[in-house]
């Protein structure tokens, strides 16, 4: 004889809070050290450049940068400047935000293979200035940068990529 316990509460119950409960808002803040590789990457973004690295052994050119090749397990010291153009590897059209709120205007996240990096090496970013229906895998795109004065060394220094 199998038993399957659990006492379901409805959305209504949760709204009315007709049960004993406690709430808590976590106070969890961090300042993550960027280190060598991501530090260089962010510095590059501030200057309007996308920086990658080249493995001395397999010669793969990778982005985002890292100081090790995960396949050869060797130290990487060779930072290379990549282009700010690329092609769409895959994309989506998102109608909800990260916390599941409806978006007025859909976002188009995509993996963009960066020109100058080895084939298949891409980064996550957004596509804009395009009708969502027109977006295709393989489409060529170019970074749209924030004004130099507004750039602060973050991934958002690239506003988005747009077809060109």
């Amino acid at each position, binding site marked *: 004889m199998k038993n399957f316990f659990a006492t379901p509460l409805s959305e209504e119950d949760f709204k009315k809070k007709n049960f004993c409960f*406690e709430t808590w808002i*976590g106070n969890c803040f961090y300042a993550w050290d960027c280190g060598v590789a991501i530090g260089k990457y962010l510095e590059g973004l501030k200057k309007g450049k996308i920086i990658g690295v080249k493995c001395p052994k397999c010669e793969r050119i990778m982005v985002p940068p890292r*100081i090790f090749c*995960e396949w050869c*397990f060797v130290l990487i010291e060779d930072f290379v400047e990549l282009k700010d153009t690329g092609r769409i590897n895959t994309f989506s059209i998102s109608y909800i935000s990260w916390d599941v709120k409806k978006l007025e205007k859909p976002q188009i996240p995509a993996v963009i293979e960066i020109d100058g990096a080895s084939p298949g090496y891409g980064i996550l970013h957004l596509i804009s200035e395009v009708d969502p229906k027109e977006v295709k895998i393989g489409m060529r795109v170019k970074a749209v940068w924030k004004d130099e004065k507004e750039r602060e060394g973050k991934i958002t220094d690239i506003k988005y990529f747009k077809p060109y």
Partner: protein
Amino acid sequence: MKRRVCIVGIGMTPLKPLSEEVSYKEMMFEAAVKAYEDCGINPRKDVDTFVCCSEDYIEGTSIFDEYVPDQIGGALKQVHTITSDGLFGVCAAILQLLTEEFKVAVVEAHAKASNILTPEGVHMCALDPIYTRPLNVNPIFIAGLEYNSFLFNYPFTQTDCAEVVVKNKKNALKNPYAAYGANLSVEDVLNSFPVAYPLTELEVSPYADGACVIVLAREEVAKDLKKKPIYIDGFSFIQGSPNLEVRSWEYPRATEEAAKRAYKMAGISNPNKEIDFCEIDDTYSYKEIQNALALNCQDIIINPSGGSLGMGYIYEGTGLMRLIMAVLQLRGEAGSFQIKINNELPKKALVQSWRGLPTENSCVLILNRE
């Protein structure tokens, strides 16, 4: 244990209060490279399984195990996380090696404690959300209650506990991997800020950054590697209760149970005579005395490395750092802080760790040079 497992490689970064020159990945990479060089293996070819020890809230990343494989040579290989102190991770690796499906295992643990801007806020989230957290008291109160109960029920004084701090910080002065070596007096300790009476500020292990990686192998593989293997004669890990109302306040009963089992496995009946030194948990001053009592090893050298009071507390890496320090001693590689027993290198060591507040658990390893 009939089949034997050994520690064949160690790698670590010196502990520091800050480590802003490198990211956590780069810190892990440095420790991993050192460990693989130490035993002369290539992780891409020679390692069969990897265990990483980390907790999401400490990293500030959910499902943190995503971010561990690349920098330790584990990409597209057998990697998993044990959310516990590194010493528990070592137990997970030993169990895997004993199945005979694996020959070489790697265990990693690290901390970027300096990256947590709100360590208390993070720690609060570990308290029971219904019975304890709503009281909104800093979790250090649990240490205060334990300490006070210990002093009340056992023949030790606060001065005895302060002496632990003096000893460990002094030992740490000789240890190049330690971040918090100091020459203090008992009065300095007793007169420091009273965090949670009777516990004072200097009796709490200060946070540090650092990464530790160790390589374990089955005996038959270990023989062919670069360094003399250190054998694991016994191991045990025991969970107590997460509920404060059921917790044992005055005595670390999980340590006693873990020790009992590890001694049995290692065939040790009189630890004070048979073990040469130990590296044990000293997150708080009184913990070292409590744990030594429960381990029944009060008469031997305790924490020659300086413990976490002297070296720094690196969250899940703390126990793994204790183990690495013990391996250095057994190999005779401890240099400026090397201990000798009757002019000879120590032969047997005990390592023990605890996961910190509010948990009740313990892990014990018995190491043997022969």
